[in-house]
């Protein structure tokens, strides 16, 4: 926490080294969070960059976070994704193809894993916004339950229940014969 405060202090002075460190630390988790929600590589990259642009604007306007950079960045990422969905600027869809099995796997295993990944991402899009939010924070942003609860202003019990229901729903969607509508 002390490190983050120091980092924030230096970032407020637009210290290049501190800003680079912030970008290195948070770009990937933010991208993962966004990618889980938008399922489009190009959009996920653009929106991730937008989160950092907003950080600089907040630093410039003296409205940057005072204590928790991580929580603040998450909140901005969530807002950026919501803004994106509100405006329906989903022009291009470059299917995400990350996390494919290694080349040491046989072709059948590669195909099976690719299908599972694709189905999982598609199924994610069918969950409620709140469920997507929780799963993206938990598994994209790697946020522990306690932090998710704090970030969303809910109890840990509520988040655990939301997570369990979302996982159960996803499982149903992934059952053979289920539709992702």
């Amino acid at each position, binding site marked *: 926490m002390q490190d983050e405060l120091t980092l924030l202090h230096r970032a407020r002075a637009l210290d290049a080294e501190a800003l680079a460190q912030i970008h290195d630390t948070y770009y990937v988790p933010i*991208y993962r969070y966004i990618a*889980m929600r938008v399922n489009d*590589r190009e959009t996920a990259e653009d929106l991730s960059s937008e989160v950092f642009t907003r950080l*600089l604007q907040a630093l410039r306007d003296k409205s940057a976070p005072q204590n928790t950079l991580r929580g603040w960045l998450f909140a901005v990422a969530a807002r950026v994704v919501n803004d994106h969905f509100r405006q329906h600027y989903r022009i291009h869809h470059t299917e*995400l193809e990350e996390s494919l099995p290694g080349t040491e796997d046989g072709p059948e295993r590669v195909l099976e894993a690719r299908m599972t990944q694709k189905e999982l991402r598609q199924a994610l899009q069918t969950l409620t916004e709140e469920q997507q939010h929780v799963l993206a924070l938990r598994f994209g942003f790697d946020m522990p339950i306690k932090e998710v609860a704090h*970030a969303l202003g809910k109890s840990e019990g509520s988040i655990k229940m939301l997570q369990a229901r979302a996982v159960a729903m996803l499982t149903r969607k992934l059952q053979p014969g289920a539709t992702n509508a």
Partner: protein
Amino acid sequence: MNNRLEQLLIECLDALERGETAEQILARYPQEAAQLRPMLETAVALSQLNLQPSRAAQLNAKNAFLDYAASLRTAPQSRRAAWGGWRRLLAPLVTIFALALLGVGAGWRANTSLPGDALYGIKLLLEDAAMPFAPDRAAAEQARQERRIQEIQQLLALGRTAEVHFASLITDVSPETLLIGGLSTELTPQTVLTGEPVIGARAEVEALVSNGRLRATHIRITPPQELPAPTPTIIETAVPPQPSPPVSATATLTSTPTPESSITATPTSETAVATIQPSPTPTITHTPTPVVTPPTPTMPPPSPTATPQENTNNNDNGNDNDNNDNDHDNDNENSNDNDNGNNNDNGNDNDDD
């Protein structure tokens, strides 16, 4: 999913978060293992959904981020909102000071500076100072707006990063871009758009120039000049004091009423244009703009209700305008909400900690 199974799943997901494997967890619930297994596998698959950005995208994003930060460091004077008021107050003093200290050479350098340059603020000050002495203020203001656009074109050509502000007319509209003052202005998911982007409307734009692209952050649109709303044309001299049955302007009869006629001529329709003139030969002509001529002086002429009270009705237009103003205010508030909302939403919750 029943309550018990849901509770078990919550416990299983807790255990998964603590680092236990699915098999270890399922071993604790042999009776429910068959039901829990697919759900735990889904959770494991989610955690292994190892979404990673491309290295190139990450590097480009970082470079753009640091470039933008550098532009903020080197050009704090481009923060229009922060010192826009001071600029006007200090303009004459600073101009004199700048000219005295820097001389014509520095003034020339400022004049060729671009947004993000150290001397760009001086350039704006010089413009502000010269504006009151311009023989034609409108032309000078127009020239200033054109300079802003030329500066942006130069920034784009140079591939530089800077915050810019300009205003001009919209000449083309597409889902992703607006052509404003000849500049292709990209709309991003984060663009806060106030007003309806239509060709001919005036747009005031705040944008970021970066890597040869102009991406709008805020666009405020003023609708194109609207035609005045049609208002009934009332000739007040046609309001005779004599009582008479009202004549409806919407009547479909074509007739030459005698003094005994009781045809009504009440321009009650807001859209009707009723011109009422006394005439010795009363006629009613039915056209889109009916002309109702009251009866001859031998009988009491019609007394249309289109009196000054009708003018009061015409004030509806004024009320509408008021409403529009209110709408506009609301729009502005909304746009502010958007800006602040980013920070206020959950971010502030966290900040409080």
